């Protein structure tokens, strides 16, 4: 099935019973398939009047304690940022999918990875974080989306699935699990109508008293610290003896995987480090690679966003180089092999400058 379809199936398997979205390429299959599947499972589907309306419908439905999702692509995710800030500040669970495309501006419908900053550093206002998961296959589209609902409920926080046009449109076979473990906690905070409850519930993020607002922020920061402790996810391939490790996520990591096999065949000791959680970022694991003397080459479909977090993690212990293409351009494996070859055995700064010439 398609990646976009797997996102839907994973969501429904995890108990998602409300989807609010809007058409935008390359994720149109998500609302289309949801429009068919939600009624079948007794859920709610609305094609909202805009991405802004959709995220606010998510906020309302999430406040009732339901498992709820929205999906969009880069420009539409920009529209959702205020709503996402409200969801995070109100400590509501929700899953938001971004199938990234070329940008900035209206951009194009080719793949991109230039929304990393928006996803991970907080595209909306204020001190909040999203838990961000990056699938690289149709199977991960299913599994990570299902997981996202559990994590959203566990932390009472919005979770983002950060994909891209390749991952959304790719078609692969997938073993759909019989059942998906769905850990739905009690939600005594939800607005449900009082139904005899001793006091009213209020979902709100306005705290005029700055001491109360600070207390909320401290609580959120503690939550994010807990996420950093418990929810780091990554995969390493052939890094043990590697001298150079490529750091990449999503579709880029798929292309890099092929490039690394070819580089190995040429005799280079190269590995792949693939972050799956972009927030929390696998900083400790990257630092460990750097401490063991491995140089890192970060590759992204952007001007260089995740590479900043790689550099922060490595903190000068080793070389960190970067290679990227922008505007929807997709690497070829040959192109990446050339970059790896240039980087291998040289200082990475020189190698990237060499490749650019």
């Amino acid at each position, binding site marked *: 099935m398609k990646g976009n379809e797997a996102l839907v199936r994973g969501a429904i398997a995890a108990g998602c019973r409300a989807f609010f979205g809007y058409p935008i390429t390359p994720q149109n299959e998500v609302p289309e398939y949801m429009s068919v599947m939600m009624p079948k499972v007794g859920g*709610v589907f609305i094609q909202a009047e805009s991405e802004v309306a959709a995220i*606010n419908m998510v*906020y*309302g439905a999430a406040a*009732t304690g339901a498992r709820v999702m929205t999906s969009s692509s880069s420009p539409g995710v920009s529209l959702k940022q205020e709503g996402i800030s409200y969801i995070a500040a109100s400590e509501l669970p929700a899953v938001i999918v971004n199938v990234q495309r070329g940008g900035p501006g209206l951009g194009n419908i080719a793949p991109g990875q230039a929304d990393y900053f928006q996803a991970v550093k907080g595209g909306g206002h204020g001190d909040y974080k999203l838990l961000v998961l990056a699938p690289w296959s149709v199977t991960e589209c299913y599994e990570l989306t299902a997981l996202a609902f559990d994590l959203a409920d566990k932390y009472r926080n919005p979770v983002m699935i950060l994909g891209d046009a390749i991952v959304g449109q790719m078609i692969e076979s997938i073993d759909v699990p019989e059942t998906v473990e769905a850990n739905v906690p009690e939600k005594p905070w939800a*607005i449900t109508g*009082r139904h005899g409850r001793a006091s009213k519930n*209020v*979902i*709100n993020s306005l705290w005029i008293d700055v001491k109360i607002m600070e207390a909320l922020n401290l609580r959120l920061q503690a939550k994010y610290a807990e996420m950093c402790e418990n929810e780091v996810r990554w995969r390493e391939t052939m890094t043990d003896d590697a001298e150079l490790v490529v750091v990449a996520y999503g579709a880029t990591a798929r292309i890099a995987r092929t490039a690394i096999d070819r580089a190995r065949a040429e005799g280079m000791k190269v590995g792949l480090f693939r972050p799956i959680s972009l927030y929390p970022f696998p900083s400790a694991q990257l630092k460990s690679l750097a401490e063991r003397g491995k140089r890192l080459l970060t590759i992204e479909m952007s001007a260089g966003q995740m590479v900043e977090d790689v550099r922060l993690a490595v903190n000068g212990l080793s070389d960190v180089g970067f290679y990227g293409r922008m505007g929807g351009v997709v690497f070829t494996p040959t192109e990446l092999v050339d970059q790896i070859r240039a980087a291998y055995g040289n200082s990475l700064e020189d190698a990237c400058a060499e490749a650019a010439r």
Partner: protein
Amino acid sequence: MTMQKVFERPKALSDVNFSYCSGCLHSVVHRMIAEVIDELGIIENTIGICPVGCAVFMYDFMDCDMIEAAHGRAPAVATGVKRMLPENVVWTYQGDGDLASIGMAETVHSAARGENISVIFINNGTYGMTGGQMAPTTLIGQKSTTCAAGRDVSLNGYPIRVSEMLATLDGPSYIERVAPVTAAGLTKTKAAIKKSFQNQIDGKSFSLVEILANCPTQWKMSPVESLKWIEEKVIPYYPLGVIVDR
């Protein structure tokens, strides 16, 4: 002689002082909503969505489940709530900036979809909370902090009659414009709110009550003057009456 209680706080109002200015009709309408909730017996299964504007603190004043919405987005939030909990009476309470400016798309589309929610629209032709800026419903010639010389159609365009505009849609079951500035107006206002909530209970789809209200502070009038202004200047532009009743 025994004492008889003839007037008390409705149960649906929390025991909290309102933050509204003296003479502001928000206080009156809040009370009416609370009385309606008491009379319909729905305190256990009603959820209110409060706006951005002076009524942003309504979650403190009502004793039912409440959710704060981003500016203009209350009908979308209400849609999310109502679709998940259809047995609850779900209502929004919004000012003219919230409903007719930034939130106009959410207003129109929730009405067009026929969402079974009740929208209470407080139209006082100004942005009270932020200091008295022009609103989509500010009258031609009316002064505000962003049209100091008075609204000029060549610069600022025309005020919007929301109720008439929404009446062109097939979704709404009931739309009425009222003005709680006379005894009769007060009675009609409460009856309209009650009818809107009853329509929802009866499964009749979207309803909106447009309440012409005042803002003595930003209009720079006394409360009594502000009620007169509504009678003399506002009602002629925004006629009272039932606009939709299907």
